[in-house]
């Protein structure tokens, strides 16, 4: 029984080490690309919310009457969107 547990532990460790190497390679080669794709999507979504719901930040682009129908769909993102819009920007962010 103890031997079986030891074997299972060894399997887990091997698999864990293999998984770690896989993640390392992903991080080195592809993580930047994945991050950039997510950033691009999120930027476009935030731009859309700015156009439709900009009134919340004092930027009345579209009259809220027309965009109120979209409100239930954007509610989950509003706090994130506001924080990103109002967050202090720095030149160093271009290197992130």
């Amino acid at each position: 029984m103890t031997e079986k547990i030891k074997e299972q532990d060894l399997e887990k460790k091997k698999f864990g080490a293999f998984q770690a190497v896989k993640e390392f390679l992903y991080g080195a080669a592809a993580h930047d690309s994945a991050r950039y794709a997510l950033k691009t999507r999120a930027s476009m979504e935030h731009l859309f919310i700015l156009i439709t719901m900009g009134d919340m930040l004092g930027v009345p682009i579209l009259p809220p009457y027309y965009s109120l129908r979209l409100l239930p769909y954007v509610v989950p993102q509003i706090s994130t969107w506001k924080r990103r819009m109002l967050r202090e920007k720095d030149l160093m962010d271009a290197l992130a």
Partner: protein
Amino acid sequence: MNSIVILLIGFAVAIAGYRFYAKYIDTKIVKCDSKKTTPAVMYMDGVDFMPTRKNVLFGYQFKSIAGAGPIVGPIIAIQWGWLPAVLWILLGTLFIGWVQDYSSAMIAMRHEGASFGGLSYKLVSPRSRVVLVSFIYFYLLLMVGAFGNIVVSTAVGLKASPPAWLILTIAGVLAGQMIYRWKKDILLTTVVTLAIAMFGIWFGTMAPSDSILGTDLSNNRLLWALAAFVFCYFASVLPIWKFALPINYVSSYVMFIGLAFGIVGIFILHPDFTLPAYANFMIPIGPLWPIMFVTIACGAISGWHSIVSSSGTARQLENEMDVRPVCGGVMFAEMVLALFALIIAGTLYSSPAEYGAAVSKGPGAVFAAGVAKFLGAVGLSPALGKSYGSMMMIIVAITLMQLVVRFMRVATAELLGDISPLFRNIHVGTVLASLMGLILVLTGWWQYLWVLFGGANQLMASVALLLVSVWLTSEGKKAGWVIYPMIFMFITTVTALLYTSYDLIHKVWTGAAKGTEAMIGNTIMGCAGFFLVVTAVILAMDGVKALHKYRLLNLQATESHA
């Protein structure tokens, strides 16, 4: 001495430093808390803040910081002897390098992912933000110049590299199309584009640049400098997924395969050091202290790491316990990479004269010859090994160059956009940044440029350590483990920059710099060096005032409690 002994000592220092010293600082001084929410988890906006697993971040951090620094630095530094270089690589990383990487990420993480600009404004003084950004702009300009010089000298000295570089670029662009436009499977894309890149490395040996362009053109530095900056222009102007990112993707695999087999080759051959352990205190580029310390650059400590750690990694850490393995651990890994580069330089040539003849053609020639030797141990032909090594050299240099040119385009728009809307144009910004880099590449001697870049890079590191010192003092935590390294780095790098800048300007005054190119290059490099010293001194003055202020506040708080 056998090189494997040095490697084993390096591993021992890395393990001991990580497991004892780094752990002590992490748990007892900084007191990282696994229950504390990091900005990545708290905000998780999918834009800047994204919690990421530590192994993925380890790979990301390693790829971001491992540029030409840990390779070129030791190759040059061996001129003083391999022993002082080894000592600085080991001790520098152990007491300063990992401290800087780790603490930069920690300070950013504990300030909601703020970057250094914001941190300096908050902790030091309002003007320090502007001074820091100006410092970073010129520091990155020197980086572009130094790395550009490496690309040019490699393209000129190793004729197989230009065709391989071109085919790698094509492979990268194809990878972008396959992934983003044609929505092909990532495994298929990787296999196909990597095969094309490897074909390019072989093709370079069959059709080197002199057989295609002729001897004159293939030896023309202006041609390859223009090629490098045209490459950076496309990387800066085109959508990042079309050019820069996919080329980096394919290049990563070329690098890691080369590194992995090269390391195996070193262990198989386990060569002895053939160059002297200690050569001389004074060599043509300067004295051992302070010049060797700044020459080795990223192999021991690098300000670039603090920028990556604070602006990138800190916003992705999902747990405070990950900072030590990701940031500290990667620096120890880079230390080992620097040792490999030192072994390449120290074991390849039978005499200092032979080494001198090789390194005069540029560090790429030395590195490529070393890679060829160690890949030869695993069965690769010398010509193919040399082509592979030259490609690795170009990749590590051009990957960072194009990122920096892109950043300089953004910085130009930010800093000069109010003066004229023309500077907001992406083409104008990119051409301006490229032009400045081009002038440096064509007019500066590569070893001086490297020393200036190294000095600026490590001065950036001491500025980062200064910020961390102020933060620790403001929190009432022990700061000696940061302050003393900061003082040492500041004195060393300022002295190195002053020495080199004075030497360059002096050559112009006395007429020792022959030719218009040398005069222009020396003047620009010298002035850039002096400017960096002035900005660093201003930052140091403000930093010391801030330190003093927080110390007094802590004293008052202690007295009022008593």
